[in-house]
């Protein structure tokens, strides 16, 4: 099946249930979503609603139970080319026997990027996330936030066409987070990437996204979408203090609030 | 096993129980026959055969008094004696038939090898079952007796069961082999060309029942009774070869058909002193021992 419209990513009636001996969990149900080429979409939703599951299915790492995912018109059955992923479990996604530099370099080597260019890309990415001095350390010698930044650097150095990020800034401090947000925004502009960005920080979602997608509680479907009509050029102080930002933020917040929370989780 | 009463224990019926250790091979046939015929009982003995044994375990078992008698090839016993182990050869367990051309062990080659006499094996690879026992001596002696240089033989160890295959697959030029593998080898096209047993000595004791010096000192009457009973058993076996052949399949995996065909070992009453001397000489030359053993200590008069 091939779709012909110009969307990069089309998710049609996607459903996913995990089965195990003791319990079956319907994680996703009736998810419909379209992402245009070059778009920056932020995804928010309550913990455990299926955001990670959704990203994994889009990445071709997990088969859907129902429905289809199309990337550039072709059904996703395996990880597509030019895909970058920052996993939520950043620590486990680093190869412990490789240094920071080697971890970042690995996908580039596999893609056949020449030695000199590779070195440059790696150094640039590491500097950008503030890990230049730690290039020769092993992941287990780093703090949690540093490990997360290695995973980000790896994805960024790869210059993917589609970048999937699963709470990529969860373990860094506020300052670094702001810097990384701006870094990501810059790269997205410059390299015309398509970004799907899962976060729990609604401010961050509004600040970064061209569109914010809200997933409902498990089994999750898309319960709301907000186009973010903030100016393309954003900056931490100006944008965040603008009135429109506040409005959008409140709108999204209201939606997220609406989804049943802790108290209401039925047995 | 050690669960049996050992050390020649007395039993209720007035008989003395003795334990014999031996692998379940053809030479046990007269023993089983004798037990059937009551020969042992007549001499006040009750026999228990322990087949859970091997070359590795029998000497220590006998010396430790866990079994009373065991079989061992003469070279091994000579070596043991020389090393100061107190073993006493009591009576032969198997002996050459003394007839070249009709013995139960032979040097064989593949029929199509073009080799017709042992001398032609000079410098070639020949299989024996164990390098340190009588088989090696027999193989060498067959070549020497034929005027060849026995030292030039390259001996390798191959268990008897594999000999027919090793010969016909050309893995070795020749092999020393005993029954029932001699028959098997012949059936598969091997031909006997030398009869090392007869070359070694006229009256060759191949293996013997032996016991420990301790038992001889402690219970000389049991040892004597055992020897007398065995001799009687041999006398009976010599007269009733078909009964022996019929007995073999009952305690080995040899089929009755094969048992009817093979050459049966000779049964002698005395451990051959002459053969022992010769074997001792060989053992010394081959570096198995480096002093001459006192054979009077080994062979029970």
């Amino acid at each position, binding site marked *: 099946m091939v779709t012909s419209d110009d969307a990069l990513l089309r998710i049609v009636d996607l459903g996913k249930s995990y089965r195990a001996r003791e319990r079956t969990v319907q994680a996703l149900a009736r998810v419909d979503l379209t992402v245009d080429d070059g778009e920056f979409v932020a995804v928010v939703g309550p913990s455990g609603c299926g955001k990670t599951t959704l990203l994994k299915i889009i990445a071709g790492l997990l088969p859907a139970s129902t429905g289809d995912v199309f990337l550039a018109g072709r059904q996703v059955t395996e*990880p597509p080319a030019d895909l970058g992923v920052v996993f939520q479990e950043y620590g486990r996604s680093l190869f412990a026997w490789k240094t920071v530099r080697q971890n970042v370099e690995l*996908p580039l080597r596999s893609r056949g990027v020449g030695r000199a260019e590779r070195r440059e890309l790696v150094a640039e990415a590491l500097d950008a996330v503030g890990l230049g001095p730690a290039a020769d350390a*092993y992941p287990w010698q780093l703090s949690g936030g540093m490990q997360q930044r290695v995973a980000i650097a790896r994805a960024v150095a790869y210059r993917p066409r589609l970048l999937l990020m699963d709470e990529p800034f969860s373990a860094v401090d506020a300052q670094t987070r702001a810097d990384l947000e701006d870094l990501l925004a810059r790269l997205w502009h410059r390299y015309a990437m398509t970004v799907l960005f899962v976060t729990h920080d609604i401010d961050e979602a509004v600040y970064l996204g061209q569109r914010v997608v809200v997933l409902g509680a498990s089994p999750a479907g898309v319960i709301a979408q907000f186009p973010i009509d903030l100016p393309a050029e954003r900056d931490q102080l100006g944008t965040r203090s603008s009135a429109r930002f506040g409005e959008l933020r409140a709108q999204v917040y209201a939606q997220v609030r609406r989804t049943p929370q802790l108290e209401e989780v039925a047995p | 096993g050690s669960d049996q009463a050992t050390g020649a224990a007395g039993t209720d019926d007035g008989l003395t129980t003795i334990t014999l250790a031996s692998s379940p091979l053809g030479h046990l046939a007269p023993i089983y026959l004798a037990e059937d015929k009551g020969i042992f009982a007549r001499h006040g003995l009750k026999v228990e055969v322990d087949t859970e044994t091997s070359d590795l375990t029998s000497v220590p078992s006998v010396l430790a008094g866990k079994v009373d008698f065991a079989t061992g090839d003469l070279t091994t016993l000579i070596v043991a004696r020389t*090393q100061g182990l107190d073993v006493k050869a009591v009576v032969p367990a198997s002996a050459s038939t003394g007839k070249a051309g009709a013995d139960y062990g032979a040097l064989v080659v593949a029929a199509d090898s073009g080799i017709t006499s042992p001398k032609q094996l000079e410098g070639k690879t020949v299989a024996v079952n164990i390098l340190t026992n009588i088989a090696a001596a027999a193989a060498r002696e067959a070549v020497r007796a034929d005027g060849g240089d026995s030292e030039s033989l390259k001996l*390798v160890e191959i268990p008897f069961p594999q000999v027919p295959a090793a010969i016909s697959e050309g893995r070795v030029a020749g092999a020393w082999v005993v029954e029932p593998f001699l028959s098997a080898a012949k059936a598969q096209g091997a031909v006997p060309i030398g009869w090392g047993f007869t070359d070694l000595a006229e009256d060759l004791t191949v293996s013997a029942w032996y016991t420990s010096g301790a038992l001889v000192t402690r219970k000389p009457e049991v040892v004597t009774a055992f020897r007398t009973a065995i001799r009687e058993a041999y006398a009976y076996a010599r007269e009733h070869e078909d009964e022996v052949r019929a007995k073999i399949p009952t305690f080995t995996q040899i089929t009755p058909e094969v048992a009817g065909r093979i050459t049966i070992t000779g049964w002698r009453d005395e451990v051959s002193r002459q053969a022992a001397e010769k074997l001792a000489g060989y053992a010394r030359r081959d570096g198995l021992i480096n002093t001459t053993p006192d054979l009077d200590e080994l062979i029970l008069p």
Partner: protein
Amino acid sequence: MKAAVVAGLNRGARTVALALGLPVLLFTAWWVLSADSTTIFLPPLSRIVEAFGQVWFSDVFFRDVLPSLRRLAVGYAAALLVGVGVGYLVGRWSVVRDLTSPILAYFRVLPAPVLIPVLLVAVGIGDATKLIVIASGAVWPILLNTADGVRAVDEVQLDTAAAYRLRAWSRHGLILRAATPQVFAGARQALGISLIVMVVSEMLMSTDGLGFTVIRFQRTFAIPEMWSGVLLLGLLGFGLAKVFEIIERRALRWHRGATGREESW
């Protein structure tokens, strides 16, 4: 600075003392307890040590020990290659595992003495048979450990490798590398086993080699000499284990770090 050096020396000395303490203790005990042993099969240690010098510091070393070591090396290398290779296939693809597991289970239970007759016919009596016996004895711990190690590789790592579409080779390499802690467990087992199987194979069909020499001593009741062979085997095992440890230390340093115990062995 100086204190650090002294501390380092102290630590070194402690390590050596710890490593040698128990062996020295055991040997002393053996020496004392066996001093007036009259049991022919348990000679005094002093006799064994004496025999050790006579037997092994001679041309026997070149005639028997070296060929054995060569067989060991080649057989072990073959076991490593086959064990890791097949283990990887078995661990990675459940179809391969399901297909082969009964067959492998079948071959695992065949002891060397059963294999040898077949090999004798099929391969002959040369070194090849012994090498096959050594390799086939040592291969199982490597194979099973590799398979299980590969099977247990973290899902997130697999996902990472898949998502970045790493080349097949580099992906295989990563998975194998992630499995090295368990592969090394197998390789270590195999080291001890291959030494034993080497001896057994030389005992069962041979004309030279350490195993042959030891079994010959045994059959000719040269008991102190036989024990000296056992001693030599122990020393060999110890030496090989040390070499192995050095290699392993380097290869698994990341693993110590990653599991959070950089300090321990």
